């Protein structure tokens, strides 16, 4: 996935000289995950900025660039470190169009690795998508593999709204996929049915998609697996379609359960398709605690926990 994102960045920079990258260690070092490797030497220090250590500043500066016709891509080294910039994201990026009557817009892309799986402990493993998804004015997208990563990022470059682009860091090097050379797009706001089945629906995204697919395959579960791809705005039609089809729903994510994405998805279903439900809507998620270092395998939803939920929901009534 690292290469796919690198390619998307590189191709968009080639195509459009208003694209500027900024972030800590994104230049000479090529990013701590090597996502921006080689871009400094290709595009020079005016387009690839190794910034001082100030998330709030680089996000704010990025917004200022976006307002003035550039297409900044800000990298936050770990999503866990984005919170000092929350005010810039919530009160500036997400509200500029609204407050200025559309006179100013802020098409910034904020890329950041998120989630666990690299033994990063509580400050290098967070899945903070809820903080962004609750913020009207933002678009929040997250790929589940290299193909979508490039395609969604290409779409992000065409959008005119601020975008939080969450990269499941666990997948950076673990998932291999064919990625076309051309600048194809994967549309924002559209989920993907990653597996088709009749008995139940598993709704998920990001790093959990492959875990769910593996589980389903290995255990021969006849399930719809919906990869959301965009978390804000959600693809409600795709969600409702799978509910109508199976009547049994599990939502899987790494983020803590309380007000995690599962809450919103569950609520959307409970207010629209209650009559289709043949079982409770279950959530298999990270627990409501910080993310532990040593015991991370217990934190992240795994086959065992998904299968427990599957069994429960299939047996229901």
């Amino acid at each position, binding site marked *: 996935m690292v290469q796919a994102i690198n390619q998307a960045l590189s191709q968009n920079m080639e195509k459009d000289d208003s694209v500027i990258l900024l972030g800590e260690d994104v230049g000479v070092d090529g990013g701590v995950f090597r996502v921006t490797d080689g871009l400094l030497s290709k595009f020079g220090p005016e387009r690839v900025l190794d910034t001082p250590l*100030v998330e709030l500043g680089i996000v704010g500066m990025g917004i200022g660039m976006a*307002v003035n*016709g550039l297409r900044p891509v800000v990298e936050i080294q770990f999503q866990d470190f984005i919170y000092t910039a929350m005010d810039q994201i919530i009160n500036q990026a997400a*509200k500029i169009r609204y407050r200025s009557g559309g006179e100013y817009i802020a098409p910034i892309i904020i890329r950041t690795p998120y989630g666990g799986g690299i033994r990063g402990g509580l400050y290098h493993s967070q899945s903070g998508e809820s903080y962004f998804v609750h913020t009207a004015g933002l678009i929040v997208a997250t790929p589940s593999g290299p193909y979508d990563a490039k395609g969604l990022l290409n779409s992000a470059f065409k959008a005119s709204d601020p975008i939080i682009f969450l990269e499941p860091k666990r997948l950076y090097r673990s998932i291999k996929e064919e990625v076309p050379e051309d600048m194809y797009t994967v549309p924002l706001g559209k989920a993907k049915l990653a597996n088709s089945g009749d008995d139940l629906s598993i709704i998920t995204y990001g790093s959990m998609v492959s875990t769910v697919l593996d589980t389903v395959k290995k255990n021969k579960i006849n399930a719809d697996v919906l990869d959301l791809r965009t978390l804000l705005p959600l693809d409600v039609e795709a969600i409702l379609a799978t509910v109508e089809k199976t009547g049994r729903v599990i939502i899987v994510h790494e983020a803590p359960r309380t007000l995690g994405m599962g809450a919103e998805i569950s609520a959307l279903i409970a207010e629209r398709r209650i009559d289709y439900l043949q079982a409770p809507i279950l959530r298999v998620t990270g627990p409501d605690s910080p993310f532990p270092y040593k015991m991370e395998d217990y934190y992240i939803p795994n086959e065992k926990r998904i299968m427990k939920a599957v069994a429960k929901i299939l047996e229901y009534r």
Partner: protein
Amino acid sequence: MAEITSQEEKQKLVKAYTAMVLSRTLDKKIVNAQRQGRVGFYTPTMGQEALQIGAAMALDEQDLIYGYYRDVPLMISRGVPMDLIINQIMGNSADIAKGRQMPSHYGSRKHNFMSVQSPVATNLPLAVGAAYSLKYRKKKGVVLTTFGEGSTSTPDFHAAMNLASVYELPVIFLCENNGWAISLPVEKQTRVDIWSKAAAYGMPGIRANGNDILETYEAVKAAVKRAREGKGPTLIDAISFRMGPHSTSDDPTKYRSESVPEGSEKDPLTIAEGTLKALKLMDDKMIENIKQKTIKIVDDKFDECEKIPPPDPITAFEQVYSEQTWMLKEEVGDIL
């Protein structure tokens, strides 16, 4: 008193004074209207006219402004029509932002004046990004960003100052140092002079008497020159005084006894009038004449704007995104 000699600058000064009178008159009009319940809220600018208008004198049209909620005089002197400001304060259907923002949160792309937010100093990092864009595109414009002295304590001030300096960007940080952050005097905000903070970022810091239009003009002119020459940012500490309350919701008698009454010798208008008279550009009669005419103009414009109907409620839920989300469509359907 700073010196001006060229005919052009003298003309500028006359124009600037007219803008000061207009700002002051409009300010008082809005404050009165607020007391009468005709306006919801307002942050008076009285006392800060000279520094804002002096700064504007040093700018060109293509220069960008990232200002804050106390910048009506700055807008006026940039040529922003009065009705744009009044419509914003009324939040009526002619307002650019359709009454979405509280009064005192104006903006106008046409005048290169970024729409104002409330969280203080968060415009500063944006100004830095704006300056980066200008530099990257090799344009000759500069960015002026304004904020109160209280705002120098914020994260955003620190971030913006350092970034502007590291990338040598054409930004002028104009601190409108009115001595108070609501109830906190500057001595409790920080232990040093604001201008001296510039050194921590390797940029020049200039102290100016913000009540004297020419002094601020000179300071900003120097900073603008520096910025246009590609030498980077400057911090200007324009020392002034908030003649009114923090806002129409504030009662300054709770926390301060000092005052600068209108027409007293520290009033920036009084100082400007002294300068104009010394330069023989105006006399008392002309001044009085301008003031009287302005009252009428402001009253008329205000009445006119007041008649404009409120925005259609539906507009309160538009322009959140380039396209309205399905959620919002649904929610608005439910609301209206």
